[in-house]
């Protein structure tokens, strides 16, 4: 990847879209410290992240909802949730877990079951809830709608909009360009490892981006 320069301001929902192999996941991986950065810098709240271990970065206020959910199938739903709060030492963890289960009733229902038994959409909810358990100041989401049924995709994007209205700072990586462009404050378009375009939402913009960058003929909104 070359020449990536992007920023996310507090409270913003910023999108990062592009086709497969464009480097979206690599971008997130380098933010959380899993992929080393060859040159340049990544700063969070004024502090540089380079060279810090993933554990330290995550404990510093960033949470990741990874591609493919990556929940721990052999652990129970509740154990998965509580793992999200690994960095925290305060007593509110229990209360937050309860709140999560209220917000995502499906988690309450399966709280003592192995998380592997949940369906894709349910696991996605768990993955998001798990990330929120750390009370992050920056939420990174990697293709949360991937592989989900349309109904679940709606639910996920509704959730992302809810989080935005609650003031959560989010960097959303997605293949679903249309929904992302519509919902985000700003969206970057990535192709072949470089940044192509930055745009703010608006119907005209969405069609423009789709036509010029993805070759999609404009259709009525789905």
């Amino acid at each position, binding site marked *: 990847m070359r020449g990536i320069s992007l920023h996310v301001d507090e409270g913003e929902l910023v999108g990062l879209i592009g086709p497969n192999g464009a480097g979206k*996941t*690599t971008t997130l991986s380098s933010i*959380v410290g*899993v*992929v080393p950065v060859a040159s340049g810098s990544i700063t969070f709240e004024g502090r540089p992240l380079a060279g810090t271990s993933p554990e330290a970065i995550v404990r510093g206020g960033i949470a990741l909802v*990874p*591609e493919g959910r990556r929940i721990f199938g052999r652990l129970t739903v509740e154990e998965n949730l509580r793992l999200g709060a690994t960095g925290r030492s305060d007593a509110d963890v229990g209360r937050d877990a309860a709140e999560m289960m209220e917000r995502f009733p499906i988690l309450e229902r399966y709280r003592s079951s192995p998380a592997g038994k949940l369906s894709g959409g349910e696991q996605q909810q768990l993955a998001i809830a798990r990330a929120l358990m750390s009370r992050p100041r920056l939420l990174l989401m990697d293709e949360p709608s991937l592989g989900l049924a349309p109904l679940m995709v709606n639910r996920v994007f509704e959730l992302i909009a809810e989080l935005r209205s609650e003031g959560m700072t989010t960097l959303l990586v997605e293949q679903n360009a249309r929904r992302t462009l519509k919902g985000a404050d700003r969206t970057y378009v990535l192709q072949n490892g470089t940044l192509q375009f930055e745009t703010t939402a608006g119907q005209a913009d969405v069609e423009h981006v789709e036509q010029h960058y993805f070759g999609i003929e404009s259709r009525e909104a789905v």
Partner: protein
Amino acid sequence: MTTLDRRLAPLARIWPALSLALLLALITLGANFSGLAVKNRVIEMLIDVVLVVGFYSFAGTSGVLSFGHMSFMSIGAYVGALLTIPVALKAILLPSLPSTVAGTELALVPAALIAGAVAATAAAVISIPLMRLPNLAISLGMFAVLVIVYQVESNWSSVTRGRAALVGIPTNTSLLTAFAGAVLAIVLVFAYQESRPGLRLRASRDDELAAASVGVNVENERRFALMISAFILGSGGVLYAQYLGVITPNSFYLDITFITIAMLVIGGTRSLAGAVIGPLFVTALTYLLQQVEKGFSVGPLTVPGRSGLQQVGLALVMLLVLIFRPRGLTGGRELPIPWRLRSPSGPLPERQAALQSPPSIEKASRSNMVALPQAASTDPKDSQL
């Protein structure tokens, strides 16, 4: 292409094997005119080359480092011993041998071939269940095989004399014999690794899933490789037995397992050159360590000698190689090709290609001397997200 190029091109193709044979020839020649101590050390080294090349033909080509390969050497050595010990002596040592074996007395070469065949058969049988297992389990499973063979040999006294030494093996392994064995092993393994089955197996080493998806039956290729490997190790075992004149089950157990693995790892697991350079380097290293074992003085400081230092030193070197240069001394490459054999219009040898353009998939598959391109010299870290 000029006439010279056309004639030299086939040489370029066999250069990896040729270069190694020439290298060994030089060393053998030098040893021939040296004292007995050096001669013996070089014979041992050449036998080690046979063993490590045999080990490489499975472990290096498939990427599965088995821990029990010496069981094949063991089987071969005992079969060879039984076939070559003079009949009269056999009657005394092993009175209950079946008459066919008891009455046979063969020369080195036929015995080695038969021993190799027996070992290969054993490999064929073992590999039927073994190759169905995941890689790690194959490595561990082979270790269990080693223990099984060791136990059988230690207890089957009527055939092997059990833990007692099996003596009276004629000592026919001369410098020339060992050299011939080493060159034959190199030629055989080179031919294998460049053949279709060999290339298929090497493809699976680098990406098992990709190879399977283009129709490579990884299990069967591994079975075949194990048989070739066992044949070489079995014959090598006979060479070894006829060098020592005496064998016990312990001759083919942990120590030699470690040394052969160390030799291949230090030399470089992924190339035939590694299987030859490894024994060369380790022989030199152990010679050095033996001097240290005897004790030496550096200026005012006298370091006392302790035996056992050799093995510790070798293990340390192996660990250092694994940490800092996991591809070994050769880095997975064959010996570099000399200028005269390089043709400007033929397939580019690896060095020139690397200098001129980034490696491409076409070049990598065509040129059998190129190890697949790697940016870093360490195994890829877990950077998957």
